[in-house]
């Protein structure tokens, strides 16, 4: 049996059109942040084996459909499957694993101009601007979006798989430095 607080949080997340921060949730349901955390954990656990998932991006929370049913959802919505070029996929991978990242950094890694792929990914709302780097020229930083998580059926960025490479050859997951600073 779920707690009333978890149910209240569920109701609010259900009607929310965008991710809701933990602080906002706590305020709306009249609970402390700590109680809200407990309720969120309870909710996440109870969605096991259902058609819904509790996803979060840092402190922002959102209800999404379970990735297993993406096919049915797509059929209902009449949505296209993701169609991006290998070039866009590479840029997306860099943004996903290295976010927040500037265009110059993406280009330094890919070795080619990425204007077009960044534009395409922005258009499809897979990546978005995330402020600016405090560096000369204050370049725009990019990060992945909620749509990105939904598109790839991820509950959070922690679920991104590690790079499939011979071990020791390349740095691991997000956060590790990669060759080529700002160009």
């Amino acid at each position: 049996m779920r707690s009333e607080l978890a149910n209240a949080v569920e109701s609010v997340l259900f009607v929310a059109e965008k991710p809701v921060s933990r602080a906002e949730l706590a305020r709306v349901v009249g609970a402390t942040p700590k109680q809200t955390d407990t309720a969120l954990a309870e909710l996440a656990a109870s969605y096991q084996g259902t058609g819904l998932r509790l996803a979060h991006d840092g402190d922002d929370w959102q209800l999404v459909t379970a990735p297993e049913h993406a096919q049915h959802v797509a059929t209902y919505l009449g949505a296209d499957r993701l169609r991006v070029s290998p070039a866009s996929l590479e840029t997306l991978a860099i943004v996903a694993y290295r976010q927040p990242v500037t265009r110059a950094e993406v280009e330094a890694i890919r070795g080619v101009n990425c204007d077009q792929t960044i534009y395409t990914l922005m258009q499809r709302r897979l990546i978005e601007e995330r402020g600016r780097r405090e560096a000369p020229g204050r370049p725009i930083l990019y990060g992945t979006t909620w749509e990105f998580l939904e598109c790839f059926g991820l509950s959070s960025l922690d679920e991104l798989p590690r790079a499939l490479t011979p071990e020791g050859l390349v740095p691991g997951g997000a956060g590790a430095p990669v060759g080529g600073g700002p160009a």
Partner: protein
Amino acid sequence: MLGPEGPHVTVEGFDGPLDLLLELVEEKKLDILTVRLGDLADAYLARVRALDALPAEEVSAFLALASRLVLLKARSLLPSLLPIAETETESEEELRARLLEYAVVRERATALGDRLRSGERGFHREGGTPELPPRGGEVLALAAAWSKVLALASRPREEGLVAPGERYSVEERTAEIEAIVAEREQVTFTELLSTEPTLGWAVVTFIALLDLYRRSVIDLEQSELFADILIRRKQAA
């Protein structure tokens, strides 16, 4: 608009003659099922007189009911009136049935009002998916792309070695490709790049292909977006 005797009168409408009659019954703690409605005629008329602020067409509905009540009262006093009146207006039992039905409606309206005041309502999702996000992204393809990028990034840059324009010639590449399709009939773009997967090589190869296509030496085919390009020798007409 609000008469002193009509607490239910509202701006957008009023509860009407049946409501007034029902109120009288309840005030006097009478039973709808047994009350002699004619007995309420005087009290009803007194209430209607107090409703003089109502528009004329609304008052007429109250007067119509008042006249029925007066008739019912007259019948009970002078039973000989009965046969004549019965055919023209509704009987006491018909009016009682209407009053009972109205009582049910009012009760239900009160129950609905209580529910509304309690604020216990449902909400649906509004615009949860305003722009359809693309679906079905393959997370392994993403990880593979990442791996490829990392592998490429760890290699020395060709630009650092030599400028592409100096190293490749479009003419030579065109001749090479022409030879390949002459021999094999068809080849994929990926195969053409495999010998030297660098940007300069790809540019020169692509320009060579455009030239061959323009000269009707080859046909180009792509089964779907982002699929490999198939280069085919043009059949002699």
